């Protein structure tokens, strides 16, 4: 199977010094579910940001869908891979949940009827109907996580990177998010789950990667 995301000898160091990742080689298929685990500061989030293009590798190359990722703009990468931030608040910019989910669809040329239909579908899927007109910043942490995911899933990306989506959630909320991710998987969308939660990772992912000291074990 062809790799949807491929990293070749990718290393990353901060400009002020301090190597975070060293010679990472990784192949990810489009509908695979992979967990990326490792202690704090091991470079998990950095790896996710390198794939999506928020950071540039110090050396090595990233390929998405067979093309060198350098050739893609940030928006082009965003169309191929959905990225759910570690802090969901960081990705909200609309004044209601409905607008947040429909925002990118509208700007990507979808007709208003279809946007409405897709938004309603997402509100139902993520159990957010009752908050349709709520200000995103006023939601609870669990609801924010669900909204962040809904806004990304609505775009139908080929693959999703989720950065620590279970952080700050209680047991019940974790179960709910787990159900949502299972639904995502059932729809044939693959994901890279950056997490500390080993149980959740083994339940939700077919492959678990361990990152330690900037290297994949």
């Amino acid at each position, binding site marked *: 199977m062809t790799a949807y995301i491929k990293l070749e000898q990718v290393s990353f160091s901060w400009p002020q010094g301090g190597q975070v990742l060293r010679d990472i080689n990784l192949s990810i298929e489009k509908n695979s579910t992979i967990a990326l685990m490792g202690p704090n500061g091991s470079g998990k989030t950095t790896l996710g940001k390198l794939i*999506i293009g*928020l950071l540039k590798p110090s050396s090595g190359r990233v390929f998405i869908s067979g093309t060198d990722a350098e050739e893609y*703009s*940030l*928006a*082009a*990468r*965003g*169309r191929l891979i959905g*990225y759910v*931030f570690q802090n969901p*608040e*960081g*990705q*909200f*910019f*609309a*004044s209601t949940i409905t607008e947040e989910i429909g*925002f*990118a669809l509208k*700007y*990507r040329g979808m007709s208003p009827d279809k946007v409405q239909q897709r938004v309603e579908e997402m509100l139902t899927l993520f159990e957010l109907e009752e908050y349709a007109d709520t*200000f995103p*910043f006023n939601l609870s942490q669990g609801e924010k996580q669900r909204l962040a995911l809904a*806004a*990304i899933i609505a*775009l139908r990306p080929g693959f999703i990177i989720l950065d620590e989506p279970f952080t700050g959630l209680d047991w019940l909320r974790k179960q709910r998010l787990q159900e949502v991710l299972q639904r995502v998987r059932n729809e044939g969308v693959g994901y890279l789950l950056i997490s500390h939660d080993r149980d959740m990772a083994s339940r939700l992912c077919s492959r678990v990667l361990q990152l330690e000291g900037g290297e994949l074990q």
Partner: protein
Amino acid sequence: MKGRPEFPDVRTLFTAVLIITSLAIAINDYLWLLILLAITLASLLIAGIHLTRLLRRLRRYRWLFLLIALAQSISNGSGTVFLEFQGYVLLSSGGLLGALAALLRITVILAAVGLLSLKDYQQMVTGLAQMGVPYEFAFMVLLAVRFIPVLMEEFRNSLAAIELRGIELKAIPLGQRLKVYSYLLMPTTAGALIRSRRIAIAMEARAFRAYPRRTWLQWPSLTGWDWFIIALSLGFGAGVLYFKIRGVIA
């Protein structure tokens, strides 16, 4: 509480910066602005501040500099005319000198403010309180200044979040693009409000303003050198202003 005097004191730096920046605004004579710049750069070097930091800051504002220089050059058509278009003077000796003076003025101000980097946040608050500024006010102002880079970072993150939803900002028409940019104000403002509320709660939880008086970890006194620099700054400022009023300096 008395503290060990540490030269230069924050009050000394504030006085020097206030005099230099005020003179930079008041003076139009480029030769005097050059003298002011030389004094400021010498002060930075003596204080051990690397000029590369200043250069980095100046580089960040290079387009603003160019714009101001162009505006000055076009608005001041005095002296020898070098370039003219349909009766409008675009470049003249007076315009060039005006542009030079404007650039020198901004450079002096930015360089002078660099002197304040000698002190940390807590020393600044203490210094302002020693100068009679109400503690709450000093704290608020410096807290706001400290948050500017954080807000800028948030603005950049929100922009990246929009692009990551697959929206090619450069490809959409200007009107729509401006509308998208207006969306960025929402998370930045909301983020600032949420953060302010959290800080206010954290400060009150640590008994901020619970008592009419507060203790200070340090309350440094001025050294002889501090008094000398303050007197020198005030004397220099008063002297230059006197000559400015008398018309000796433009």
